[in-house]
């Protein structure tokens, strides 16, 4: 018989290393033609940090994204950005890049202030042009840079950011482990075949508070990928170790979700502005996966009326649990 069930799970996730410094640094160089280079140690492992950092630099400098090149993760060239880990790079390195870009921008605006004879506080840069309040000035950033160069001034910016945390007391654990947290709720719908023990995840609704989503499509991609990995964690994946030895170390025995195993995912982005984040951003990389297995386990318990306490919920375990009842 096939039984349907529904499960809900919440999660929270502290962004950055736990109760530890984890700074990131960045350099920004605005070149003669108004294009820019960003140097960051941040390793893009496929999650899209290079693109997100380029967006943050472009926005802060007031130039087009096509005019930003990010050079990343080369220790001889780029400053330390810490690990691509702990869902921290958008928040921590995003801030470092924002600050470095701000530092460079201030130099441009100082020169523009001189040239236009208007207070720097009233000036900004948008799409490569200097703006005065709400109006374009007609002066391009390139012209200001040219003026800078003619006076022997380079427009270099540097920035670094370290999330504000404290140590945790060794006996009580009291303290501030993270500067900010991401939150999420996922709801899973499953169908359990009580004859075979096979669980099919039909749908997952995944609502994630990521702070400002710098790149919504990337955020969705993280959520969908996290749900898929969570399905594997809940139902399929286990590295079996016997007498200290991994049994069948390879992809023919260790099965991870294929396109036929994943469910429909409904990502919902909640943008609870984080004042300390770059443009209000927090993070999403790990949170995407954190509640998925929990929601699926609750859905399976709902379907069967029996709860299981050991992951993964393999067909063998499900059948054995049904039989024991």
């Amino acid at each position, binding site marked *: 018989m096939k039984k349907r069930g529904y499960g809900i799970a919440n999660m929270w996730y502290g962004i950055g290393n736990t109760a530890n410094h984890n700074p990131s640094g960045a350099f920004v160089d605005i070149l003669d033609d108004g294009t820019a280079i960003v140097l960051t140690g941040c390793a893009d*492992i*496929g*999650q*899209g940090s290079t693109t997100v950092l380029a967006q943050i630099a472009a926005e802060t400098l007031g130039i087009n994204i096509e005019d930003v090149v990010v050079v990343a993760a080369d220790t001889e060239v780029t400053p330390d950005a810490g690990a691509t880990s702990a869902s921290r790079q958008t928040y921590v390195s995003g801030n470092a890049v924002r600050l470095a870009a701000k530092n460079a921008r201030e130099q441009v605006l100082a020169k523009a202030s001189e040239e236009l004879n208007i207070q720097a506080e009233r000036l900004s840069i948008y799409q490569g042009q200097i703006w005065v309040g709400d109006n374009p000035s007609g002066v391009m950033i390139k012209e200001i840079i040219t003026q800078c160069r003619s006076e022997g001034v380079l427009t270099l910016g540097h920035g670094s950011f370290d999330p504000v945390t404290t140590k945790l007391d060794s006996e009580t654990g009291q303290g501030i482990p993270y500067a900010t947290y991401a939150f999420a709720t996922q709801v899973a719908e499953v169908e359990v075949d009580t004859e075979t023990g096979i669980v099919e995840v039909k749908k997952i609704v995944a609502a994630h508070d990521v702070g400002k989503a710098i790149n919504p*499509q*990337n955020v*969705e*991609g993280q959520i*969908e*990928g*996290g*749900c*898929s*990995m969570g399905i594997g964690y809940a139902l399929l994946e286990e590295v079996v170790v016997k007498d200290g030895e991994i049994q069948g170390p*390879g*992809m*023919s025995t260790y099965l*991870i*979700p*294929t*396109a*036929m195993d*994943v469910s*429909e*995912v409904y990502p919902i982005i909640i943008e609870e502005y984080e004042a300390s984040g770059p443009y209000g951003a927090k993070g999403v990389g790990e949170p995407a996966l954190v509640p998925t297995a929990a929601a699926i386990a609750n859905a399976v318990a709902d379907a069967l009326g029996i709860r299981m306490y050991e992951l993964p919920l393999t067909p063998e375990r499900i059948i054995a649990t049904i039989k024991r009842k």
Partner: protein
Amino acid sequence: MAEFHLEMKVNGKPIVLDVDPGLRLLDVLRDILHLTGTKEGCGEGECGACSVILNGKLVDSCLVLAPQANGQEVITIEGIAQNGELDSLQKAFLEAGAVQCGYCTPGMILAAKVLLDHNSTPSRLEISKSISGNICRCTGYTKIIQAVEIAASRIATKEGADHA
């Protein structure tokens, strides 16, 4: 060991080589022809990162020995952009955000290409099935499936226009 005289077509170009007959097609493509867009992920035909199109069919090139490709036509990821213009699947993968780490991407695009070459109006299930031999650990497949749908609709529109 005696060398094997291999003649095949790769991305439309005739290739003539004398190779160790124990070499896999994957090794010939990557190590001899330097077509490194074809990736090795598992070496046992499970992950699909090494997928190429052999005479119109999707194969894991880690499971094909060089002599088996003799006289055949091979298409790799390097062979699907035409005259410098991206294939509709390549464009759709970019648009839909179907690329993350990118390691599965070449094989995934070729798997989708084989599907669309035979069926230009696939259902979601048909798309999922056609890429189910290609493992992606990053995306959860959602955006990959969307990308294939986008490409399919573009191809359908274009074909409609061509016939109009």
